[in-house]
């Protein structure tokens, strides 16, 4: 605070909506939402699959899932960004590389980096959810004649999904905010755009404030939606629930 007060800084909030900066911010928001949504779908698919694998008795799937989780969650996301952008395309055939370069390879790399990284984290959330379902549920399902696969699909996972909504919300918000790292591989998302505005106008505080409020707003919307989902999906009597506990 004293630092800021010591500057004779002239605030000029209008840089946030005058052309072309306002349009840049909007484009940035759209890109952030696109990356986050696609990466979330990838993360949910990987997390669901490997999370379920980790709870299975077979050593094969369990080992594979453990390897995936430990490998991808224990390396910084920034490194994964460079890995998927500069590393992986090098081993692809030249035509595939060329195609990627013409069709926004940086966007694809960012989606994969975010999706695979958060997939590993989500797998642990899913595992925790499945393991918190009492074993009697599995036994009961099997005794009705369901196979293990069916028991997972029809009983364990549906219950687990309801239990993991709060940590899933957490992970989703992290994913959204982590998408800002995509700027390092030249994806023009919100943070990139705020830096761009700053570079053009030298109005850094305004640009960073705008970025902060945008992430805050987006995250609040996601949190509100997830909270609704949680209430909608709740199975009456499944868990102890007090009024308003979902907040």
């Amino acid at each position, binding site marked *: *605070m004293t630092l800021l*007060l*010591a500057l004779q800084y002239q605030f000029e909030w209008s840089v946030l909506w005058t052309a072309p900066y306002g349009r840049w911010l909007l484009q940035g928001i759209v890109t952030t939402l696109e990356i986050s949504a696609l990466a979330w779908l990838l993360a949910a698919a990987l997390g669901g699959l490997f999370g379920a694998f980790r709870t299975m008795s077979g050593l094969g799937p369990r080992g594979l899932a453990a390897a995936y989780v430990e490998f991808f969650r224990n390396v910084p996301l920034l490194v994964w960004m460079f890995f998927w952008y500069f590393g992986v395309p090098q081993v692809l055939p030249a035509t595939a*590389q060329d195609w990627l370069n013409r069709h926004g390879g940086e966007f694809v790399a960012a989606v994969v980096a975010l999706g695979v990284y958060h997939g590993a984290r989500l797998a642990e959330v899913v595992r925790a959810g499945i393991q918190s379902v009492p074993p009697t549920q599995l036994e009961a399902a099997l005794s009705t004649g369901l196979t293990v696969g069916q028991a997972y699909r029809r009983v364990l996972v549906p219950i687990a999904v309801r239990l993991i909504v709060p940590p899933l919300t957490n992970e989703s918000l992290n994913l959204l905010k982590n998408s800002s790292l995509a700027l390092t591989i030249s994806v023009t998302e919100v943070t990139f755009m705020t*830096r761009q505005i700053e570079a*053009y*106008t*030298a109005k850094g505080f305004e640009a960073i404030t705008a970025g902060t409020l945008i992430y805050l707003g987006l995250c609040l919307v996601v949190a509100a939606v997830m909270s609704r989902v949680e209430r909608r999906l709740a199975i009456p009597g499944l868990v102890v629930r007090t009024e308003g506990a979902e907040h």
Partner: protein
Amino acid sequence: MRTHARKGSAAVLALSILLAGVVPAWAETTLEKVARTGSFVIGTRTGSPPFGFIDKNNQWGGFSVDLAKLVHAGIEKKLGKPVKFELKESTPTTRIPLLTSGAVDLIAGTMTITRARRESLDFSVVFFVTGAQFLVKKGSPIRGLRDIGGKRVGAQQGSTNEKVIREKHPQAQLVVFPDQPAAFTALAQGKIDAYTNDGVQLAGLKAKAPNPAEWDVVGEFYTYEPYGMAMRKNDSDFRNLVDFALMEAIEGGEYQKLYDKWFGPRGEVPYPLSESALIFLQMQVIPR
């Protein structure tokens, strides 16, 4: 509880004062700050040979850093006591906030003086003159500005040439990187067809590349890039000190010695000083 509430409202008040831009009109000058803290901090580059870069022996220095050392000597003389000389990394996106927030006292890197930047910063006299060109792989069809239509052209975020390509040459597909090494890797991998930056920086990249013969710096200068040192606005005593240090270096031959050290035939990046550039530099030296 009550004290908490009071603290909270004080914070809200302070924040709203801050946001409203009602800022007390006091601030210490750069010389006062350096005298108080005992150190003179410059912002420079780590990946822009030979202006500011980390060399093979992990030493951080360069032409701009050496010039800033002359300013440092001027400060010590003025204050009559030794002060520390510190380096901080600054990039095109961070250098303005680093300076305005007081984290550094002088930007001595590869910053082009522009009228827009002079709205929020003050600049020294020009210490280097260059212009934007393109770096391409040898044999590339791109030979200059007229060949970039539909091509993927890399640039550094916040640089003046990025702005020129974006605004005046939208026929090119602009890909913006936060730093030069990332852009160069992308160029080497064929992710971009050309990388644009100031000619002397491209010469530096080429000279530092594993195999310099693979690369070509092509095209006429399509921008004018006069480099200057940047400082906080409205601090004319400090600006005089910086300017006089540079003028004395040009006048006394120290500048040419440093130029030769970094850009001479055996320097880090061989780049002869053109006669017109030399005359321009000398004419900036005003009489004592």
